[in-house]
Structure formats: structure tokens, C-alpha cells
């Protein structure tokens, strides 16, 4: 039995163990099942949610806002990061501003942005941009800092301008770092999308669907089912991005491995 098969088997056993233990404990323990439903009840609740068309509409809405916000962040963060990474004094000058803005949780900006743009879906996208911009920007700056100065100087001495150097040297060699930033931003963006939908009124998506299914019925099953599905969706997002990253930057890993072995 190979190590991979063993891990997969043990992983499946782990899931079954936790599922079974919870099922048994809740069933035998006389816990109020209105608060802590049996795992099997949650699973059948998950099937009900999957059969509900408005769940799929909500999922598409969340993913659309998420993709839009992430796209804007990449379009903004990468060029700005390239500039700031190339000009260390500029990066040094704006750092306090970034350090001030970065920790502000974007949900607190919700009332302000909603009042200003008066449109709930645009508000959601803007808040996703605010949250996802920082990982993209900071990883781009860091990646440009790691660029081989020799390659940059070589191009400079051949008479290439700063834009050409950024395009031909800095961007490609910072790309693996940028990809890591985008991957982090993607999961942050998903969290913020759901949070904003949950908190804001008149939003559309998984978060607002969660509020709707909860509304009045005081039934905890669809809530847990939705948490389960949101987790699976998050896993899917992670897997797709990590896969794309591994495929696109195999040369980078090979290169660093080669450099390590020298």
C-alpha cells in the first residue's frame, strides 16, 4: 500500500470517526436536537439545500462578486506593487498609510460604502476589493524585491526603459509571489463576501441566503448544511487555485530546487 493510499484511507476513517462519534454522542446523550442536530440530519438537510434553486442562484451571485472584486484587486495591486517594489523609497514613504488601512476589517466599512454608492452589489464588490488588495499588493512588492538585480541591470545596460524592465524581468520573476498573494486574497475575498452578505441588508448571495433560511423558522439544520456547503465551496476554490499555481510555476519550484542543490 503506497503512502498516498494509506493517507487517503486514514483521512476517510477520520471523517467517519468524527461523524460517527458525534452521531452516537448526540443520539445517546439526550442533547436538545433542536440546537445540536444529528450529523445525519444535517446531511439530509444538505441535500434539501442542494435541491433548492435559490441556493444555486445565491452561490453564483457570491462567486460573481468574489471574482469581480478579486479581478479589480489584481488589476490594481499588481501594477502598484510593481512600481512600489521598483522604487524602495516610495514603498518606504507609503508604508505607514498601508499599515493603517490594512488591518481595518472591511465589514466596518459596510455602512459608509453602502450609504455612498447606494447599491448593495457594488458595495459588496468594493469591500472585497478593499480586503483583497493588501495581500496582492504586499506579495507583489515582496516578489519584486526578490528579483535578481543582475538581470535587471543587464536589461538596463542594453538600453531598455524602466517599463520594459518591469514587464520583461520584474513581472515574470515576481509572478510566483504574486500568485501566492492572489491565492491568499481569494480565500480572504470569499470570507469577506459571505460576511458582507450576512451583515448587510439587501445583499444577494450565500450569506443572505443563510439569513433567509434562518428567518423565523429557528431551524438550525439548514444553517449547518449551508456551513458545510460553504466549506466545500471554499475547498474547491483553494484546490483550483493551488492547482493552477502549481501548474503555472513548476519552473519556479524546479529552479529554486536547483538553486538549493547547487
Amino acid at each position: 500500500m503506497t503512502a498516498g493510499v494509506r493517507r487517503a484511507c486514514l483521512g476517510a476513517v477520520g471523517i467517519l470517526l468524527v461523524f460517527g462519534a458525534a452521531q452516537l454522542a448526540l443520539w445517546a446523550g439526550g442533547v436538545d436536537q433542536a440546537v445540536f442536530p444529528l450529523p445525519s440530519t444535517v446531511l439530509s438537510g444538505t441535500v434539501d439545500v442542494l435541491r433548492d434553486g435559490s441556493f444555486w442562484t445565491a452561490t453564483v451571485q457570491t462567486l460573481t462578486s468574489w471574482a469581480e472584486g478579486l479581478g479589480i484587486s489584481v488589476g490594481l495591486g499588481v501594477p502598484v506593487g510593481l512600481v512600489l517594489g521598483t522604487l524602495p523609497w516610495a514603498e518606504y514613504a507609503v508604508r505607514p498609510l498601508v499599515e493603517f488601512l490594512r488591518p481595518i476589517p472591511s465589514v466596518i466599512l459596510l455602512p459608509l460604502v453602502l450609504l455612498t454608492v447606494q447599491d448593495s452589489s457594488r458595495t459588496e464588490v468594493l469591500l472585497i476589493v478593499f480586503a483583497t488588495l493588501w495581500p496582492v499588493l504586499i506579495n507583489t512588492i515582496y516578489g519584486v524585491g526578490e528579483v535578481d538585480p543582475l538581470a535587471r541591470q543587464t536589461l538596463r545596460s542594453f538600453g531598455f526603459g524602466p517599463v520594459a524592465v518591469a514587464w520583461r524581468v520584474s513581472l515574470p520573476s515576481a509572478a510566483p509571489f504574486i500568485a501566492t498573494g492572489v491565492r491568499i486574497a481569494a480565500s480572504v475575498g470569499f470570507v469577506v463576501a459571505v460576511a458582507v452578505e450576512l451583515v448587510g441588508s439587501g445583499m444577494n448571495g450565500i450569506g443572505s441566503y443563510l439569513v433567509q433560511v434562518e428567518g423565523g423558522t429557528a431551524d438550525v439544520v439548514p444553517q449547518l448544511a449551508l456551513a458545510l456547503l460553504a466549506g466545500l465551496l471554499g475547498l474547491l476554490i483553494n484546490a483550483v487555485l493551488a492547482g493552477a499555481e502549481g501548474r503555472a510555476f513548476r519552473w519556479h519550484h524546479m529552479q529554486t530546487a536547483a538553486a538549493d542543490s547547487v
Partner: protein
Amino acid sequence: MKRLTGLAARLVVLAAAIGGWQLATRSGSNPYFLPPSTILSFMYHQWFDGPAGHLWLTSDATGNMLPSVGRMLAGLAIASLIGIALGVAIGRIRVLADLAEPLIHFGRAVPPPVAVPFFLFVFRLGTPMEIASIAFGVIWPVLVNTIDGARHVHPGQLETARAFRLGPVQRLVRVILPSAAPKILAGLRLGLAVSLIMMIVAEFVGGTDGIGREVATAQTTLDMPTIWGAIVFLGLLGIALNMIFAVVERRALAWQRGAARTE
């Protein structure tokens, strides 16, 4: 000299940002964007104009800011304790890691705000529900990073510990935890950012007091100074927490740089 020009550039950028903001908003043409002077004087009167006996904090500050920060720290502490304990066990015991891996991957992929309505259902409105929500968000980065740190302890160090016949507790405290410390701290740093988000989300959804609740109320009454004050406060809180964290990190890991130097 280079440092000095850099510092000057920083000050110029900050002054330009604040000054530009002030000039752009002074006319008051946009009712939602307030000038910095208004925001700062509001923050002073609303929160820091209290009696000296209360460290100059007003009742609004002690009734909203302190509970928020307290719950955040409580959530961080609970999540760290559980996350580090579980993480060390999973990182050191191979079978446990294989059993738990898919579950942990799943758990960290759940966007933590999704769990808030469930916690609201279990704990009702108020502090326990908010602490649970914060801890649920923080635990995953701490757990994942601790597992990673505990798994990659240098084999030579463990063999030395065995040669000196250190017991399991000694091995844990003297070898495994110190060796995993950089990773654990990295996880806590990620957790810090999550805790701020979850603090606000939990207070919005089911809080009775706190910064998030204050802003949620301010939204319905169009109380812009409170909204802006909270934003600025959270930015400053983030800076302060990061600075404290950086100091702790440097202190806690100082021996490591020393050890690396002597090698």
C-alpha cells in the same frame, strides 16, 4: 542621511494624505465623508474625554471599545490554547495527522462568518456567542501553522533530547515548542487579522455592545462621526496590535537568531 530623507518622505506622504482629505471634504459637499479634524475631535470627545480616574476614557469608550477588545483577546486566547495543544499533538503523531488532515482542510475552508448564525442560535445574543465566533475563526490558522511547526522539529535536536533522557514534558517544553515557535507566531499573526473581522461580524449580527454594534446603530441613524471614528479607531488598533505582536515576536525568537549566529 538616507534614513532621514526616507522619514521626511513618509511625513510628506502622511501630511499630504491627511491634508488632501481635509481640503477635499472641508466644503462638506458630500455628507458622508467627514474631514479628519471633525473625526479626530469627535473621537476625542466621544471616547477620550472622560475622568482621569478612568484613564480619561468616557463611559462610551468603556462600554463599547473595552468589551470589543476584551472579547477579541479572549477569543484569541481560547483559540491559541486549543489550536497549539491540538496542533502539537497532530504535528508529532503521524497517525493523528493522517486521520485529521481532510477534516482540518475542510474546517479552514469554511468561511468563519457562516458559523455566526449557528453560534447565535446556541449561545443567544451577547458575549459568549461573540467569543465563540472569534475563536472559531482564529483557531484554523493557529492549528495549521502549529502542526507545520511541530512536524518539522530538527531530528538532531530530538535525538539530543533523547540522549539526555528528557521526559515527554521536558521534550515538549524545551525542544518541540521552541522549535515550532516561529510557525506558531506566524499563525497567531494571521489569527489576529481574522479576530478583528470576526469581532465586527459577530457584533453586527448579535451583539449587545461593542464597536460593531455602535456602527450598526449609527448606520440606521446616519450618525457619520461614529462610523468614521470606529474606522479610524480600528486602523489604529490594528497598528497597535501589530506593533505589540512584533515586539513579542522579537523577544520570543531572540534566542533563535542568537543560536543561528553561533552555529
